[in-house]
């Protein structure tokens, strides 16, 4: 147990100690080596790097240098990432064997290890994180602490204004004032639908009950999305603090966070955060000497996409099959065990403490008219800088793909960006300059979604991609309502026909009609949005569907049944790259010969297509 005074003292002392994390000009002999421990970097051996650093420092008897484990820096494509503060030197793709050189050269001799610096899009090597184009257009609010603090140390969180918002709320504000502030900020649900957060809080508050609940939805099932996971891994306390603020605002004393079991690191760090907060008396009874009490428990998901739907999630917390309930009543009226329940997404919560501390006016000054603040996107697919980006609402897709994302690999052309996962749609090249916010994305047939953004180059077949998403929804449909259970299956069958060259023109109309029926008649969000990827692909790439149906041809050669891969002899420069990558050795030709494909051996995997620098293969 710590009193409020003690916590404030920790903040003051720790902040001084950690000043070198944010102040690059600080004159100090101390250094902090930050090693990214997000899932991406952990998968490519960052824990080993951390251990190696510690071992070498101990062997060499170096003091004043600390090695710290942090959350995600964002630039996952260049992982594992190591940053040295205060000078903010950014080393990319570090291997355990590089540690010795970093310590010897950088720490002891004070020289930057040029070899390990990261190249920017113009090919120049840059020394610090902020110099990278990847970071220049970003604005970090929800990810403010990610990559700065050690997520497993509550003191580090406290040092950077942690639990100050909670203190302010408990000591200076009434619940109504808190809700008014959140409403005024214009924050909208970051889970995808964009419901005004303040409104949701208010609706839950007005329902009187002996017990209310606060729930955090961390069931990020959307394939290709990892924003919520990164926040939980990099800054778990900010979500915990926001849940407590929400609890105070709506009059709840109990919270649940529902996390995917596939995110073991996030689960572990959140549990550590809960334990530490309990130990400090921040969670529990009489928080900060007031009569407010609150406690949080973790509930693990078990691999069901539909549980991201709020009522299905509630069913799952209650230990049942995750099948959605019929709404109304909404969770604000009857949620967990029939009690009023507030459900928000991880990223939504991550914005709350900043809104309370910096004010609603500050927050609403960022973004567009109807979409305030920032949005975190998990940028992936055919783009150079794969990673986590946070941009102000209203940033254009072009800025995200070409400036932050560093463009498309191999100089390929941009074909489409997919947002919103299996519930969203694709955005074709003609809308690259659309400012991204809730309304504009809806207008062009996609949706904000939770924040997965997959970039596709011109080697991707849109019919095949539609099929991929339908396969996903078919296997994830919970089976409760007929339109979703059977309708999506029938849609998938039509798409399979098209991809196998057995489709007909009228199939496309059938597909469209079926899609609209499913949207109109499904029970929950999963079914109501499942046809979106197909509809938006049909809207912008109808000619490809027609090609599949009438000409039995797939221009990208992704649909193997109706494609033959050929090398254009006029363009081939005999470089032999395709030959090297072919997994079955189907490409013939030596040295300066033009290459040819042996159709009897070719398995139509398409690897050669992507490898050709001259686009000679099609």
């Amino acid at each position, binding site marked *: 147990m710590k009193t409020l005074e003690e916590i404030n003292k920790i903040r003051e002392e720790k902040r001084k100690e950690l000043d070198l994390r944010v102040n690059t000009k600080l004159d100090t002999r101390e250094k902090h080596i930050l090693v990214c421990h997000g*899932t*991406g970097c952990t*998968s*490519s051996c960052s824990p080993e790097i951390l251990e190696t650093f510690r071992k070498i420092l101990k062997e060499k008897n170096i003091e004043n240098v600390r090695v710290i484990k942090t959350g995600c820096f964002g*630039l*996952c*494509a*260049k*992982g594992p990432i190591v940053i040295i503060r205060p000078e903010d030197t950014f080393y990319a793709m570090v291997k355990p064997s590089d540690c010795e050189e970093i310590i010897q050269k950088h720490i002891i001799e004070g020289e930057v290890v040029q070899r390990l610096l990261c190249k920017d899009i113009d090919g120049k090597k840059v020394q610090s994180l902020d110099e990278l184009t990847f970071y220049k257009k970003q604005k970090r609010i929800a990810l403010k602490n990610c990559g700065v603090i050690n997520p497993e140390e509550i003191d580090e969180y406290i040092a950077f204004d942690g639990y100050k918002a909670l203190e302010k709320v408990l000591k200076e504000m009434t619940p109504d004032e808190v809700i008014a502030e959140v409403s005024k900020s214009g924050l909208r649900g970051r889970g995808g639908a964009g419901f005004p957060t303040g409104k949701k809080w208010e609706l839950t508050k007005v329902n009187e009950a002996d017990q209310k609940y606060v729930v955090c939805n961390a069931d990020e*099932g*959307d*394939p*290709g*999305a*990892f924003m919520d*996971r990164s926040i939980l891994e990099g800054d778990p306390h900010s979500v915990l603090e926001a849940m407590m603020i929400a609890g105070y605002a709506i009059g709840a004393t109990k919270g649940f966070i529902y996390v995917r*079991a*596939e*995110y073991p690191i996030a689960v572990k760090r959140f549990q550590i955060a809960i334990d530490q907060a309990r130990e400090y008396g921040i969670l529990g009874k009489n928080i900060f000497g007031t009569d407010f009490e609150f406690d949080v428990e973790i*509930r*693990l*998901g*078990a*691999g*069901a*996409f539909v549980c991201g739907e709020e009522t299905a999630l509630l069913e*799952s*917390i*209650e*230990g*049942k*099959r*995750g099948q959605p309930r019929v709404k109304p009543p909404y969770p604000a009226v009857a949620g967990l065990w029939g009690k009023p329940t507030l459900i928000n997404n991880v990223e939504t919560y991550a914005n709350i403490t900043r809104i309370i501390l910096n004010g609603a006016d500050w927050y609403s000054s960022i973004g567009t008219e109807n979409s305030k603040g920032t949005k975190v996107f*998990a940028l*992936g*697919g*055919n783009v150079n800088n*794969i*990673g986590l980006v946070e941009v102000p609402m209203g940033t254009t897709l072009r800025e995200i793909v070409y400036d932050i994302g560093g463009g498309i690999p191999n100089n390929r052309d941009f074909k489409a960006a*997919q947002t919103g*996962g299996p519930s969203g749609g694709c955005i074709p090249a003609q809308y690259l300059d659309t400012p991204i916010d809730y309304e504009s994305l809806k207008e062009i047939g996609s949706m904000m979604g939770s924040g*997965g953004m*997959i970039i*596709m180059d011109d080697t*991707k077949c849109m019919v095949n991609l539609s099929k*991929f998403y339908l396969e*996903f929804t078919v296997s994830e449909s*919970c*089976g409760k309502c007929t339109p979703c*259970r059977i309708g999506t299956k029938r849609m998938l069958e039509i798409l399979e026909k098209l991809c196998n060259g057995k489709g007909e023109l009228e199939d496309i109309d059938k597909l469209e009609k079926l899609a609209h029926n499913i949207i109109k008649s499904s029970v929950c969000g999963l079914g109501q949005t499942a046809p979106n990827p197909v509809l938006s692909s049909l809207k912008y790439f109808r000619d490809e569907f027609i090609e599949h149906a009438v000409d039995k041809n797939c221009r990208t050669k992704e649909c193997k049944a109706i494609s033959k891969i050929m090398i254009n002899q006029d363009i081939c420069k005999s470089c032999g790259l395709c030959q090297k990558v072919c*997994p079955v050795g189907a490409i013939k030709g030596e040295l300066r010969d033009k290459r040819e494909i042996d159709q009897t051996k070719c398995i139509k*995997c*398409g*690897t050669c297509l*992507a490898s050709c620098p001259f686009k000679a293969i099609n």
Partner: protein
Amino acid sequence: MENEGKLEYTKIVENEENKVCKCKDKFLENLFKIYQPIKDNLIQMLNEIQDHYGYVPMDVQKELSEFLKVPMAEIYGVVTFYSRFTLKPKGKYSISVCLGTACYVKGAQKIMDRLQERLKIGEGETTEDGKFSIEAQRCVGACGLAPVFTVNGKVYGKATVKLLDSVLDELEGK
């Protein structure tokens, strides 16, 4: 769907080999001490059981049914609803290919095809010798390394058919 479920159920009950008696298991005893016998705890307990045994054995479900006072049918319903719970043990090496969008766009399907071709089993199946099993996973979250596959949780990033082959060669040799 329901019919399929029933078939599988009968098959497993009939198959004596699967009826490994876990009744006097220390793990279960302990589990029943940690958790209160209330229905809400079902999924959490199943998660622990899946982690411990590698699957959810039928007789453990029965034990659980008695402990929580929840009908067996309901427990079976929950187990088959969530993809994380399995009714059969996985192979010694459980290989999952991520089929999340980021990996898919980067060619994960090729990895999956190759894996099935080499092991001669389908998605969700285990080889006869119990050595390998294949699973499709939806997003490991390591999209920066796409495409990825995992072997017993260890992530192999920027995967190619060649990398898969070499990993399989090594595991088969063991």
